[in-house]
């Protein structure tokens, strides 16, 4: 991974008695998709806004592309793109008009017509903002955040409120943006999204970073078990399963069997044990531990969202 694009050291932000961000430090490196996950109110948006320079931290230092957010605001704004969690435009402004306008705010804008094409909005060029669907509005805001060809893109909960199809389309878009060499700082309260998209993830709760690593390392550090789940006719004798090395527990309920365990070749050993004892089974699947389990292990509770 490349040089540090964002450096945060000892960041603290208070609102009255509430400490929204409680002394956090981390770096973001060039070319990565850095994710910040956590429940609503964990301090994600406040963190992003302090880094963007839209909010002034109470303590700590922040450097973005070597500049001081808020202080070097106009120079920094030329090189970053921001997509807000709640974003707005005048209802009657047209899509093409908007991009043309925003392109005029920067010294070296991209050709906005191409950008519209890439984001699948060319057909909507003459449509007023208010007539766009949620997914189209979100794509327009991404286009606005990209029109200056930024080095660093901030996306604050880009898929919140989108239908599943638009959400998948958005994931594809974020991956395309990274493939073009940009660094992306993304916040989300979806663990699935963080796992799928991010190179590194910071898990936040109550204004603190509870853990920061690649999704794979975070999950591996849990040493959590894999579950093999399948259906059987009637009841089976589960002893053939509990004798397998690596199996810790077997549950049987309502024609469904769940085998808990870990270790390499765990799934293969379960299947061969079933076949050699001639048990007829179906609908077999495995459940791997995910970031959801990491959050549970770190905080002792489910993500509340």
């Amino acid at each position, binding site marked *: 991974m490349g040089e540090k694009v964002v450096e945060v050291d000892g960041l603290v932000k208070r609102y009255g008695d509430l400490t929204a961000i409680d002394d956090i430090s981390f770096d973001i490196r060039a070319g990565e998709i850095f994710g910040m996950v956590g429940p609503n109110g964990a301090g994600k948006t406040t963190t992003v806004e302090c880094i963007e320079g839209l909010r002034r931290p109470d303590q700590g230092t922040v450097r973005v592309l070597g500049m001081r957010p808020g202080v070097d605001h106009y120079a920094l704004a030329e090189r970053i793109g921001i997509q807000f969690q709640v974003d707005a435009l005048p209802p009657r*402004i047209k899509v093409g008009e908007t991009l043309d306008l925003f392109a*005029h705010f920067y010294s070296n804008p991209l050709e906005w017509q191409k950008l519209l094409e890439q984001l699948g909005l060319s057909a909507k060029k003459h449509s007023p903002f208010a007539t766009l669907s949620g997914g189209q509005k979100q794509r327009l805001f991404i286009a606005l955040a990209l029109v200056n060809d930024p080095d660093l893109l901030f996306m604050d909960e880009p898929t919140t409120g989108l239908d599943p199809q638009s959400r998948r389309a958005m994931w594809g878009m974020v991956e395309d943006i990274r493939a073009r060499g940009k660094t992306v700082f993304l916040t989300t309260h979806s663990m699935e999204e963080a796992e799928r998209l991010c190179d590194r993830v910071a898990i936040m709760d109550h204004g603190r970073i509870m853990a920061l690593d690649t999704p794979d390392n975070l999950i591996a550090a849990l040493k959590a078990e894999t579950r093999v789940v399948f259906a059987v006719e009637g009841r089976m004798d589960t002893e053939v399963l509990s004798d397998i090395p690596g199996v810790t527990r077997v549950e049987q309920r309502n024609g469904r069997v769940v085998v808990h365990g870990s270790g390499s070749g765990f799934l293969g050993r379960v299947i061969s044990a079933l076949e050699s004892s001639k048990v007829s089974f179906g609908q077999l699947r495995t459940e791997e531990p995910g970031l959801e389990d990491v959050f549970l292990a770190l905080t002792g509770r489910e993500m509340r969202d």
Partner: protein
Amino acid sequence: MLQTRALGKLVVVQVKLYLREPIAVFFTLLMPVMLLVMMGFILGNEPVSELGGRGHLDVNLSGYAALVIGILGIAGVPIETATRRETGVLRRFRATPLRPLTYIASDVLGNFAMMVLGVTVVFLLGRFGYGVRFHGSLPTLALGVFLSAAAFLSVAYVLASIIPTSRAAMVVGNVLLYPMLVLSGAVVPQQVMPETVRNVARFVPLTHVVTLFGGLWSGHGLSEHLREILVLGGVLIVGVALAAWLFRWE
């Protein structure tokens, strides 16, 4: 530093957005015209002895023109700006290198153009539609219109800077606007008002716009309206200073 590229584009977009808003166009550009047409239909412009031998439209035309400036400055611009702040449109601009001064300049220029357009339509319709005689000089009248528009836009931005929400802007707009319309003589001629009302009206800025327009239209020079020019100029200077100090994106 004024960003000229951004400014030029933004002025054009601001004017387009304004013209696409039917309600705004109705209340600011069309209402004074409709008032003129209705009064022309009901009262006509025959000479009347109570008005010193002048017709109703002779006396009222400058009031209808002043109406355009009053409505846009006191209600139109503050409501639109508060709405944009509340919904997050201004925040969207803040995420770019656009400077607040450039944004304000674009909004002021766009609305200035709308005010001049509205006033021009009223004057042209009065002159050529109803034969209201014009005795003044066009450049002098234009100067009066420009000064009045600028003064009211500075007031508009002071209001837009201190009013937090669009609802509050609507309430403040209406509370200030209606007494202002009545007291200033924009709707009821100053000539028919009792002395006490006219004394109160002197503290209403729009009164000075009505007086200035009326005077310049009937052939007065700028030197005969020093009081109006000083009041409106003072409003402009104080307004610009306050607005520059108070304006916030969010």
